[in-house]
């Protein structure tokens, strides 16, 4: 039951959540942050830190934002543009640094659509 970052983060990327995460499992794309569902320990420290309320537990994500649950996972399970292999459990955002790319879903995301 990991936490998930949804649409409100896109083009905001405040990063306060990254400072709160005790296991450093929130990774930085180009337009959005992503929580690695395999590394998330479900502690919830990130949720109140988000100034735009983009974070919620996966089973509490509103129906119109469900796609973001799968998309957070895809960021780690599929090879991102320009990379040969998926990130997988990368061992912490400070290990890999900002990735500078997004999943296809986020790269093409138009504000106001779901």
């Amino acid at each position, binding site marked *: 039951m990991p936490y998930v970052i949804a649409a409100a983060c896109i083009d905001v990327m405040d990063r*306060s959540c990254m400072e*709160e995460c*005790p*296991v450093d499992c929130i990774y930085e794309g180009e337009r959005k942050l992503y929580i690695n569902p395999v*590394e998330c320990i479900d*502690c919830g420290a990130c949720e109140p*830190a988000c100034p735009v309320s983009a974070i919620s537990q996966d089973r509490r994500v509103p129906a119109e934002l469900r796609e973001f649950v799968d998309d957070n996972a895809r960021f780690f399970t599929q090879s991102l543009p320009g990379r040969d292999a998926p990130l*997988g*459990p990368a061992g912490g955002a400070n290990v890999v640094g900002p990735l500078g790319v997004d999943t296809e879903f986020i790269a093409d995301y138009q504000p106001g659509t779901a």
Partner: protein
Amino acid sequence: MSMSVACDLLIVGAGPAGLYAAYYAGFRGLTTAVVDSLPEVGGQVTAMYPEKPIYDVAGFPAIKGRDLVAGLAAQAERFAPTCLLGERAESLTRDTDGVVTVTTHAGTEIRCRAVLISGGIGTFTPRPLPAGEEWLGRGLSYFVPSLEAHAGHDVVVVGGGDSACDWALSLEPFARSVTLVHRRAAFRAHEHSVAQLRSSTVEIITDAEVTGIQGDRHVEFVDVTGPAGTARRPARAVIAALGFTANLGPIRQWGLEVTANRYLPVDTTMATNVPGVFAAGDITDYRGKVRLISVGFGEAATAVNNAAILIRPHEPLFPGHSSDAAPLPAPALV
């Protein structure tokens, strides 16, 4: 001065699984030591969710995190394990005769016949206060080992979680003044504690940070910067409760197989790939693993009983029922 401890079983990690393992090892008649990098028992529950009610511990329709930890500690205490709190297990070596030696960062040497790693998500490190790491031990601290030590002091607590709010509230009767500085408007702490704080004499400054610490040899003043600018206020103690970061830490160097960067694969006896080293709780991994406290308890019992027959090969795996005979006066049933 470094210390040395000899025991049958060393438990690394004093969270719920480790505490229950300490009880079980005692019940089996093993001498036990427990080591944890934090100064308090309870692991993740104490560090992160002391006020959260937990609903899935067998036999308890609901129990607060800290009450569960207190119960587990009391249960283990019947057998008086050696507790090495605030010490991080650093290295592990194994003699040809099967004696394992674990050394802590403080230099304590623990010689044992088996090790049980109940290390959860790893070793916790307090998040540093960006303004003044160099004041550690000179007025800045990450924990409050004694409330009385702050009698008559102006104390500044930094943070917005349960620990920050709890410490601010419990220091209020002792300190001359308590100020709580939190960099957001919303608190992560339990609503009840926040309400208690608001009706106490604790001064709450939100959307603000401690941006400087001043003093001669010891902390004397802190600079608090908020929306209205920076103000200097007297402070004899700064308690930074900014949460923790967790990392598998030194046990990565123990020759253990690690999966997904943080789990230790075990077999059905909870043995890891290193002879004499067992694991239990959130840190273990196997097909079908479910990471819950209740599962950790079961794994702790399995691990201890299997460690017991490694240590004493002539004993049976099954420990007998705790209800059959009480080796020590049983505590009153609650």
